[in-house]
C-alpha cells in the first residue's frame, strides 16, 4: 500500500518512499528548530535503515539542513533568539578548530589509535554532557536559593553584591542580543575548542556548540538555540555546495526531506516560546544521553539496533515537543480568553 508513495530518484537511480523522506525530515526539523542542531546524527542512520544509498546520504542531508536552517533561523530571529554577532564569531573560531581537529585525527590514524580514541571520546562527551545537564536541571532550585541567600546576606551586612567570577582579559566584546559582555579570547577559545571537538569526532557540532553557548559563554538557552542554528545555516550551505560539486546530493530526496523539515522546524521553533530555558536543557540532556546509548550500541556491533534507538528517540522527542507546544498554546488561549472576559465585565 505504501508503494503508492514511491518516487523515482533520478541521481541515485532508484525508487524510494517519499513518505519516509518527509517523515525523517519532519522529525529532524522539529529537533533542529527546538534544539538548534543540524540532526545529521539522526538522518544518516535512519536513511541507512531504509536502504537509501549511503553515497548520497551525507550530501543530501546537508542540503536539506541548509534549507531547514534558513526557515528555523528566520523564525528564531523574529523571537529575538539570534545573536548574529556571536554567531559570526562562532563560525570563524569553529572552522579553524575543525581543521585542527581533523589534522589531529590524521595524526591519531598514523598512530593506529584513531578509531578507539574517537569512539570513546564521543561516548564520554555525549554521556558526560547529558549527565551534567540533567544535574544542572535537578539542582537549579537549590542553586537559585543559595544565590538569593548570598545576595540577601550581602545586602544585610551592607557589603557589595558578591561579584560573579569572570575572566576580563581585554578586548571585551558586548553582545547586546545575548546581554553579555565577555572577553574576545574567551569567546574565541570556546569556539576553537568546540570546533576542534567537531573536527576530531567528525560531527557537525551543533550539539556541542549549543551547551557551550549556555555554560561557557553564558547565553540564555533560547538565544543559544537560535544562534547555534545561525552557525548551522552556514555550515549547511557550504556542505550542500561542496557535496553538490562532488555529485553526492540526490536533489529530489533533499527536496522531499526539506518539505518535512521546514514544517517540523516551524513547530520546533514555536515550541521554544512555550517551553524555554531549563525545559529545553532537560529535553536536550535526555536526547543526547539516548544518542550516546546509540553510539555505545554501535561499539558492540549492534548497528541496526543503534539506528532504531536513535530514530525512536528522535520520534519520541518530536512527540514530546509537539505535545508541549500544544499544551502551551492551549494555556495561552485560555489566558487570553480569561483576560478578554475580565475586560468585558464592568
Amino acid at each position, binding site marked *: 500500500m505504501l508503494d503508492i508513495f514511491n518516487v523515482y530518484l533520478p541521481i541515485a537511480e532508484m525508487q524510494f518512499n517519499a513518505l519516509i523522506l518527509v517523515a525523517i525530515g519532519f522529525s529532524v526539523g522539529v529537533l533542529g528548530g527546538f534544539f538548534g542542531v543540524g540532526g545529521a546524527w539522526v538522518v544518516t542512520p535512519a536513511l541507512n535503515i531504509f536502504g537509501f544509498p549511503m553515497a548520497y546520504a551525507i550530501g543530501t542531508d546537508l542540503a536539506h539542513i541548509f534549507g531547514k536552517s534558513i526557515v528555523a533561523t528566520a523564525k528564531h530571529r523574529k523571537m529575538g533568539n539570534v545573536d548574529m554577532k556571536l554567531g559570526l564569531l562562532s563560525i570563524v573560531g569553529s572552522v579553524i578548530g575543525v581543521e585542527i581537529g581533523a589534522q589531529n585525527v590524521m595524526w591519531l590514524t598514523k598512530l593506529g589509535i584513531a578509531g578507539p580514541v574517537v569512539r570513546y571520546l564521543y561516548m564520554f562527551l555525549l554521556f558526560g554532557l547529558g549527565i551534567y545537564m540533567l544535574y544542572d536541571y535537578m539542582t537549579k532550585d537549590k542553586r537559585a536559593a543559595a544565590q538569593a541567600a548570598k545576595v540577601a546576606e550581602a545586602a544585610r551586612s551592607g557589603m557589595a553584591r558578591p561579584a560573579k567570577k569572570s575572566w576580563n582579559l581585554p*578586548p571585551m566584546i558586548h553582545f547586546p542580543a545575548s546581554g553579555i559582555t565577555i572577553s574576545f579570547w574567551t569567546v574565541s577559545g570556546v569556539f576553537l575548542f568546540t570546533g576542534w571537538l567537531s573536527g576530531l569526532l567528525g560531527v557537525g557540532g551543533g550539539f556541542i556548540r549549543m551547551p557551550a553557548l549556555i555554560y561557557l559563554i553564558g547565553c540564555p538557552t533560547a538565544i543559544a538555540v537560535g544562534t547555534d542554528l545561525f552557525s548551522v545555516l552556514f555550515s549547511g550551505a557550504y556542505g*550542500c555546495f561542496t*557535496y553538490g560539486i562532488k555529485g553526492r546530493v540526490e536533489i529530489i530526496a533533499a527536496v522531499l526531506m526539506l518539505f518535512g523539515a521546514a514544517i517540523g522546524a516551524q513547530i520546533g521553533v514555536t515550541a521554544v516560546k512555550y517551553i524555554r530555558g531549563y525545559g529545553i536543557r532537560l529535553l536536550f540532556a535526555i536526547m543526547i544521553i539516548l544518542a550516546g546509548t546509540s553510539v555505545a550500541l554501535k561499539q558492540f556491533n549492534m548497528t541496526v539496533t543503534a539506528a532504531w534507538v536513535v530514530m525512536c528517540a528522535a520520534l519520541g522527542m518530536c512527540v514530546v515537543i509537539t505535545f508541549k507546544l500544544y499544551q502551551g498554546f492551549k494555556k495561552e488561549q485560555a489566558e487570553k480568553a480569561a483576560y478578554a472576559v475580565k475586560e468585558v465585565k464592568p
Partner: protein
Amino acid sequence: MKRFAALILNFLLLAVPALVWAAAEKAEPLEKKVNLANLSGINYFFADWYNNNMWLYAIMVTALMGVVGMLIAFVTDIFLKMVGMEVSKIEHHE
C-alpha cells in the same frame, strides 16, 4: 574601538585561508553519469545538469534548497497565524 575593529579584521583575514583549507575534501567526488534514457520532465532536467555541469548542479541545488525552504516557511507561517500560533519577541528567562 578602531584598534579592536582592526584586530577582528585581521582575525577574519587569517581565518580565510583556514576557511578554504577547512573546506578540505572529506568525500571523494562520485565519478558517474546518470542514464537519461527513461527520464523525462524535472528528473531529466536535474540529471542532465548533473551529467554535464556539476558546478551548475551544485549552485542549483543550493539555491533550490534556500528558495523551497523559504516558500514552505512562508506558507506554514500563514497557516500558523490563522490558528493563532504566531511568534514575536520573547522574554529570555531560564
